[in-house]
């Protein structure tokens, strides 16, 4: 790990300014992704700003009947929150499907959204990777691509976003609240938050340099059955090959978001519309125009079957 200086943020504004003024500075929240990558020197910040002491660890009802989740709320606490369990069960289910108890006790809402890909070549510093080293090439194309993306991929990168929580947030239409270094605040819809790789796979979100996430808010609850199904190589403590998060109403209508297929949680309105017709129709719409590799084309069938299981569970 490279040496770095360390500071505890005194305010959101000071933290944002501090990162904006030093291109090699980073916020640190739970540290479970950043420190992992720093040990491998994939991330090499020269300055860390600890944002844990800013009081952003509260979950509050909003005036419109929704919920505002502080950026530093731990994954464990979010999954266990009474309102989340009752009204946004999909979010609890997605959270507890991720990582381990120990990791969820540290991992934060903002850090989870910003965790980086698990593409094996991103981690293998001996291999080219456009995300780790822009312009060096993509080893996954023509390499081991079983885990990687099938939707919205580019010639430069076929990585996926590994978060379970983000899939639920996409289905719930969450909004990411931020503060920029100049003090302006903005709200970014979760659908616009993560970017597709295009030819700049190293730029993963719409956040600007120093822009700080203060909270994620959820609109008022929509009812329905909340189901999260994750398919992986072992029954626990593994990233998803494919995951399906759905909210299904008693009339069969609903919404569905899928993880493990793209650089962002994947949801399309056209697929939601098809949902009452069943898994084949909905997953056909969701994965229209897919560009799988020989090794990951199984994901197309897997999404359909997993969605089928989710729909039967909702009916059952």
């Amino acid at each position, binding site marked *: *790990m490279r*040496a*770095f*200086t*360390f*500071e505890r943020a005194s305010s959101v504004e000071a933290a944002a300014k501090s990162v904006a003024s030093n291109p090699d500075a980073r916020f*640190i929240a*739970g*540290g*479970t992704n950043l*420190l*992992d990558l720093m*040990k491998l020197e994939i991330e090499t910040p020269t*300055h*860390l700003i*600890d944002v*844990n002491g800013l009081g952003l660890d509260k979950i509050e009802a909003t005036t419109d009947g929704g919920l505002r989740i502080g950026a530093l709320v731990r994954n*464990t606490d979010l*999954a*266990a929150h009474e309102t989340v*369990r*009752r009204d946004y*069960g999909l979010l*609890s*289910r997605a959270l*507890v*499907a991720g*990582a*381990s*108890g*120990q*990791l969820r*006790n*540290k991992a934060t809402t903002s850090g989870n959204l910003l965790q980086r890909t698990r593409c094996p070549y991103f981690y293998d510093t001996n291999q080219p990777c456009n995300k780790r080293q822009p312009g060096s090439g993509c080893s996954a194309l023509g390499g081991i691509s079983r885990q990687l993306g099938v939707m919205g991929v580019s010639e430069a990168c076929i990585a996926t976003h590994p978060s379970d929580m983000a899939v639920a947030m996409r289905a719930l239409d969450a909004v990411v609240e931020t503060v920029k270094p100049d003090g302006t605040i903005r709200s970014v819809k979760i659908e616009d938050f993560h970017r597709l790789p295009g030819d700049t796979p190293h730029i993963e979100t719409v956040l600007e340099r120093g822009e700080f996430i203060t909270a994620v808010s959820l609109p008022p609850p929509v009812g329905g059955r909340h189901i999260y199904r994750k398919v992986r190589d072992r*029954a*626990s*403590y593994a990233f998803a090959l494919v995951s399906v998060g759905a909210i299904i109403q008693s009339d069969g209508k609903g919404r569905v978001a899928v993880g493990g297929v793209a650089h962002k949680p994947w949801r399309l309105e056209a697929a939601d519309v098809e949902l009452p017709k069943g898994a084949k129709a909905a997953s056909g719409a969701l994965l229209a125009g897919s560009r799988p590799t020989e090794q990951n084309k199984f994901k197309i069938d897997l999404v359909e079957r997993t969605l089928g299981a989710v729909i039967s569970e909702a009916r059952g």
Partner: protein
Amino acid sequence: MTYASTVSMKVNGERRDLEVDNRTSLLDALREHLHLTGTKKGCDHGQCGACTVLVNGVRINSCLTLAVMHDGDEVTTIEGLGQPDNLHPMQAAFVKHDGFQCGYCTPGQICSSVAVLEEIKANLPSHVTVSLTERTRISEAEIRERMSGNICRCGAYSNIVEAIVEAAGTRA
């Protein structure tokens, strides 16, 4: 600003003041600075659970957190849970049920399992919890799922589960 910091933590009930390179993980601070070598380093990347300790009563992977981020915190390691002549009930249950072979993962397993019972008591949900709105109950399935962050290369899992069930005081 410098590349080192001072931290003051309460470790196993005793106040410890440390001067650490900012890069020092909590795990290395415990092992290399405080010579509390009970806590083990398996992967150093959050993938095995050997480094599990309790911070303010909550289990975390000490390899994926910086010592400088724990100023003022209370840390409990396996040495603080119990000693050879004064075993914690979970330690005694692991001995009784042979919840290990080589023992390398064991301190992490024990710290984790002590916290797991607290987490179930506090009604935190897990991936196998049937209903999110009813009380979570202790069961073998709950214990297995909640312990999945602790890998055992020797595969002592079934005895580990038996030990935890016994320590929970429940026949699940």
